């Protein structure tokens, strides 16, 4: 029973982390109609900034906050220098340009920080397990990830659904020619949205950094999962990204946790051990394929356009 609770928490934590990454991606893709493969690079930059600033300041929290600001500024600079010239273009041009940016960022990181990767150690108060219910201990840092991601989700909800900026963002997602025609400064809105997306990617990267390693190319694997999530959730929909991210996180974690034992009941031990990880990693892609067939607009599509 305790095992199930812990595994559910693991799935929730992984899902919420994916949400941070997918939220930025879905904002940019849904509202600006811009395919940004370099989103994973911003995730990587967030982690590198955090590791560097944390080493300079000696404080994890301060390093993380500085990194967040740095990624936001980097995102805005990137949009201003390179990406805004690509808005009117074909999707293929955008993919090629942002794919080039992945290579650019990977090599820039190699030049600046070297090929070996960095470590982002946690302060002592975050490395202890916390007793959440009697008998169940859970790592404090993973609880922090859950807390921060939920706060961000709530914050995004309030901003998008309750503020004027959010109204413009939603309007932009529905019909961007129209809000341009109504005299809204669409360029500024796009820069803002892109910066927000970059900061969210950076936040995901720096939150993930102490669990994983800070290394070149760290954003590429996880970016694929983020794409899966926005396809499942419905492109441009924050709510969709949230639900789909938790869905994917749960399926991935629970698949890994319980599938081997289930398979062992039907297959021999060795075959089950080998098949289970392969099968559990396929589950989310299977889900995506099914959703593309049955409900191509995603589970929670943004407003009809």
């Amino acid at each position, binding site marked *: 029973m305790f*095992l199930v609770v*812990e*595994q559910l928490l*693991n799935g929730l*934590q*992984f899902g919420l982390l994916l949400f941070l990454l997918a939220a930025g991606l879905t904002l940019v*893709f849904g509202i600006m109609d811009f*395919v940004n*493969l370099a989103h*994973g690079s911003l995730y990587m930059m967030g982690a590198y900034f955090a590791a560097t600033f944390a080493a300079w300041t000696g404080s994890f929290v301060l390093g993380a906050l500085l990194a967040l600001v740095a990624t936001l500024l980097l995102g805005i600079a990137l949009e201003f220098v390179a990406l805004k010239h690509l808005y009117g273009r074909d999707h293929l041009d955008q*993919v090629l340009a942002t*794919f080039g940016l*992945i290579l650019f960022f*990977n090599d820039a990181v190699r030049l600046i920080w070297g*090929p*070996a*990767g*960095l*470590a982002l150690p946690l302060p002592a108060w*975050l*490395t*202890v*397990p916390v007793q959440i219910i009697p008998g169940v201990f859970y*790592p404090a840092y*993973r609880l922090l990830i859950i807390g921060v991601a939920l706060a961000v989700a709530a914050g995004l909800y309030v901003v998008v659904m309750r503020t004027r900026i959010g109204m413009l963002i939603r309007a932009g997602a529905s019909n961007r020619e129209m809000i341009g025609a109504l005299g809204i400064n669409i360029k500024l809105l796009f820069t803002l949205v892109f910066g927000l997306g970059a900061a969210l990617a950076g936040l995901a990267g720096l939150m993930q950094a*102490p*669990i*994983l*390693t800070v*290394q*070149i*190319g*760290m954003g*590429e*694997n*996880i*970016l*694929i999962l983020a*794409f*899966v999530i926005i*396809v499942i959730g419905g*492109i441009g929909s924050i709510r969709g990204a949230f639900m789909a991210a938790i869905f994917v996180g749960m399926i991935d*974690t629970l698949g*890994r*946790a319980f599938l*081997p034992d289930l398979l062992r009941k039907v297959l021999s*031990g060795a075959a089950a*051990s*080998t098949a*289970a*990880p*392969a099968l*559990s*990693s396929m589950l989310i892609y299977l889900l*995506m394929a099914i959703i*593309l067939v049955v409900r*191509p*607009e*995603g589970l929670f*599509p943004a407003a009809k356009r």
Partner: protein
Amino acid sequence: MTKAYWLAGAMSMVSALALAQPATAADTIKIGFVSTFSGPTAVIGNDMRNSFELALDHLGRKMGGKPVEVIYEDDGQKPDVGKQKTEKLVQSDKVDFIVGYIWSNVLLASLKTAVDSKTFLISANAGPSQLAGELCSPYVFSTSWQNDQTPQAVGTYMNQKGVKSVFLIGPNYAAGKDMLAGVKSTFKGQVVGEEYTVWPSQLDFSAELTKAKNSKAESIFVFYPGAAGVQFLNQYAQAGIKAQIPLYTAFTIDELSLPLQKDNALGVPGAQQWVNDLPNDENKKFVADYRQKYTGLRPTFYGAQSYDAANLINSAVVAVKGDTSKKDEMKAEMEKVNFKSVRGPFKYGNNHIPIQNFYLQDVVKDGEGQLALKTVATIVKDDQDRFHDKCPMK
């Protein structure tokens, strides 16, 4: 909503990052070197290349009087890419030797190409069980080990410590399966659980750690080379399991991962056939010159094995005075191990896998205040892999 379909296709582009390197031709000893030079595990390939280059420096960049040309190829840690690069080296570059191979699955995919063309292949790391057994070949030599040997030594050490039960975790590919099988073959206690994770994409081990913790096992054994080892160890420490269940490792803590694992690695034992502080003269020279040539870096066992591979090739080329068409003579010479290995003396078994000692290594703070690996004891002497009987060569 064609966007969504379209996007699904675009995803594959992200996962296909590859690089290529130019090649030249001359009357030289040509060596192809296949390793990983891009992606997160490129640091391992770099260390192997550094050590190989250092060995060539020590040899005056000549073998048997002829200049040496090395063509480095990046396998991107992918079996299909490794196979293509091996084919290119054999068929278009026509190399005399192929060296390298970090990953067992890459080596297994590339093996047939090299063996069919009768090109000597020196594995400087990967040691899948098939290579030691039914797929052994007169043209294949190893300067590393058979995968099972190192975890077998760990299992023996756990017996010595009186460990009663273990939970095994490893990646789901050729080497991961060999490693867990290796521990199981020598460990006398109970194996409570066995988990395989998706390789190399799985980065989060929370589900497996939770299971290990709840299994009430007395110990955990893992095999996670490269960056995955850093991630596993960090997550193991953060989950607070380090204080409860001791960890035993194979190929998880090395000089590349240690600067990132930091104090999380302190006191976590592993086994290895080479440790940087082995007291023989060749090793002292190798380690000292490496640290001088590549400031700020320390060699790893991957590098030590690559350094040995260069010297093994040199011994063969010298024996035939640079005439690399005399393959039988070169093979006979290599079987004698007529060079001084940085791990100390070893012999080859019938399957061209070393018969060698395995040492217990521990993580300590060295004289410079840095974390370092230290040889603590010899776990097994002159260990031969358990698949040599299946090899038809005598």
